[in-house]
């Protein structure tokens, strides 16, 4: 019974694919199970891992947000720009706080519009995303900034550990900001599992009317979710600049689709109500592996897009098809078996 349920879960298949892919890569290149590859993967997971936490929460609640890359880029750019112009030398904490606040404000704008207009969040955030991006590129005239403020430069040179690869003679370092990913994952897990608000997010995605009847303030939950996504995006945007060692204001364009794909692959249903942190992490890991490690398999990188598309279709198609078949059959409207016993 338990196994049967396991076979129905996306996470299970994503897990198997990850394991199979790793073994395949190991056999072909012998470079997968090495310290530096793991460090590289962990490093590449930081940004998608953090962002997908927010995206997952939104999709669980039955919403969606495609403006977060724009929020992240705008917050990051503004923060860096402001810090440079005042020659900021203080603590990074303030910079992160500043960027997060910017993101929060933009996220709340999204939330307010979604609550008020009651139109598909996809379209609304498409519009706001266009505004944020346009604002950055047009009004702020954003361009790449090669030299970051000093506190950021210091942080981007701070590493947790370094792994050497003897055979290839290269080494990879795990940046300090990896801790942010751990914190984001831990906080999200805690929020979704152990707070009433988190359960409200699931409840909202499960049945909006029932959620309201249960006494939740549906609008407040939505404001929270979009606000959090904005704040998270602001924070992650700056993290990305630290990670890259430079400020590239357009580097996240198109990233929303990658994140949504990762979340959905991880078993989160786009219709809302279902989703797990570990599933989402696995989805993000799989996509990261495909874009990072496919080359180790000898597959040219330009196939990664194709593989991603195929995974999305297979991943969503399986559960969608099961649901469709289920709907065609009759659910037991009255307890037939019980009657026979009586």
């Amino acid at each position, binding site marked *: 019974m338990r196994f049967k349920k396991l076979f129905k879960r996306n996470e299970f298949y994503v897990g198997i694919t990850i394991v199979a892919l790793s073994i395949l890569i190991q056999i072909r290149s012998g470079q997968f199970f090495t310290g530096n590859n793991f460090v590289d993967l962990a490093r590449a997971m930081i940004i998608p891992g953090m962002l997908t936490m927010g995206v997952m929460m939104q999709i669980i609640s039955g919403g969606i947000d495609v403006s977060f890359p724009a929020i992240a880029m705008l917050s990051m750019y503004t923060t860096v720009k402001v810090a440079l112009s005042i020659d900021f030398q203080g603590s990074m904490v303030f910079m992160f706080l500043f960027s997060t606040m910017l993101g929060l404000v933009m996220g709340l704008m999204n939330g307010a519009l979604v609550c008020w207009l009651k139109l598909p969040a996809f379209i609304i955030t498409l519009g706001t995303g266009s505004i944020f991006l346009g604002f950055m590129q047009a009004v702020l005239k954003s361009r790449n900034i090669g030299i970051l403020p000093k506190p950021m430069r210091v942080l981007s040179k701070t590493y947790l550990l370094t792994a050497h690869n003897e055979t290839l003679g290269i080494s990879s370092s795990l940046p300090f900001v990896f801790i942010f990913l751990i914190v984001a994952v831990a906080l999200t897990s805690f929020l979704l599992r152990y707070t009433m608000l988190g359960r409200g997010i699931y409840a909202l995605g499960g049945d909006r009317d029932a959620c309201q009847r249960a006494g939740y303030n549906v609008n407040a939950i939505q404001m929270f979710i979009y606000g959090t996504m904005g704040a998270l995006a602001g924070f992650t945007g700056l993290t990305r600049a630290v990670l890259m060692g430079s400020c590239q204001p357009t580097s996240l364009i198109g990233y929303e689709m990658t994140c949504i794909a990762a979340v959905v692959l991880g078993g989160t249903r786009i219709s809302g109500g279902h989703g797990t942190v570990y599933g989402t992490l696995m989805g993000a890991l799989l996509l990261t592996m495909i874009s990072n490690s496919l080359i180790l398999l000898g597959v040219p990188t330009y196939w990664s897009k194709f593989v991603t598309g195929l995974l999305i279709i297979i991943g969503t198609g399986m559960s969608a098809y099961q649901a469709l078949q289920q709907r065609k059959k009759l659910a037991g*409207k009255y307890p037939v078996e019980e009657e026979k016993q009586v």
Partner: protein
Amino acid sequence: MKVTEVSKAFGGVQALSKVNLTIKKGEIHCLAGGNGSGKSTLIKIISGFYKADSGTIQINGKDYQKLSTMESIEQGVQVIYQDFSVFPNLTVAENIALNDAVASKKKLVNWKKVYQKAEEALKKINIVLPLHEKVEELSVSDKQLIAIARAMLHKANLLIMDEPTTALTRKEIHKLFTAIRHLQKQGVAVLFVSHKLDEVFEIADNFTILRNGQNVITDSTKNVDHKKFIYYMTGRSFDAELFQPEVSQEQKPLFQVKGLGLENGFSDISFSVYPGEVIGIIGLLGSGRTELAMALFGLYAAETGEIWIGDKQVTIDSPITAIKHKIGYVPEDRLSEGLALGQSIARNMSIANIDSLCKKGNQVDFDKVDENVLHWAQELSLVMQNAQQPAHTLSGGNQQKVVLAKWLEIAPKVLVLNGPTVGVDVGAKHDLHNYLHQLAATNEIAIIIISDDVLEVLENCNRIFVMNHGRFTAEFKNTEVTEQELLAEMTRQE
């Protein structure tokens, strides 16, 4: 709790007008009334989901003009809705414990306590459910039990149950009643909405009957008998004219069903309809009547049995094939299944027949569409300003006329109507019934009314089949049966 002179209107339809209701502590009060009598609206006002247009609600001696959901819950009002309001994506335990936790304004979830509370609640109604299972995996009756357990967990002063027993077996109902009496002893008042007479008399102390949004009577169940109760509910002692067509049994049947069956839906259904007849199939929610109706229209493909139209056997496995064989279906839920509310009346009316309303190259012949729309609008005395109005601007009765016109448009040989007058006002109801009689008199169509409204079926169908737990359990001629007998047959539990 006391409700005084509460009124509420929806888009021009007066759902409630000056309704009163008083429930004392520890009382089990039954709220009864036919479809569209305003029961559900009243419940939603008491629970704060709707705001009353006028009137006051007094709970625990406190007056409210506009009661909010939160206030209602704080005052100990708990509602079990017909759709149970359960979260399909959460576990059984969480479904039971969530509402209570929200009401107590907790910030964190204590999972140990959630399971504890859920178990406690289930114990109260003496039922065992898998606490870790997600609710979407459970059957309908289990969902109902969850809803009941959830309400009982809360420190409720007033428990409102909207037809709580429809999906339960006799044994489960007994359990439920035991639990209700147990609560009554603790001083909890219960408002019990039901139209199963036996149950009302078994459990309720007092009752209130609503009809067309107005109070009819409030009395003790001891003072009335079954017959009188039905009289109050329907508003007339039964002497209305019965539909009696001239049917010659020598003719061949127009429509026949032989041994139709569908797993989890119904089994061994056989009947035939002769020219000029209107037959009725009556059963409670969950009796399989809706599944049968849907199978006749191909929305579910029946697994066993045969369907004959005239002397030809046909296969009906989708609405498309059903329409090809000239079967029309007026669905149960007009709003979600019958109409595209945002689209125009004309489009809604002509959509089923649009393939035969075109010129070459699949071009829609709008002249013909216009002509037909006008024809049906006059034929059914449809009240509208313009056929381009969106369907949602119409009243319930007129909307139903549009749905009916959609099927008349295909010149059907078989017309299946599932709950054709739910939420339809009296005037339009009369129009619709009259029209069906006229239609039957053409002797060219088989009409099947599927309903839980005893009176409707009795008045309009010359033969009536009673459906119970997926089977036909009895067949009557409308001249030879009384409402009480039909009701008894419908609600019989074995």
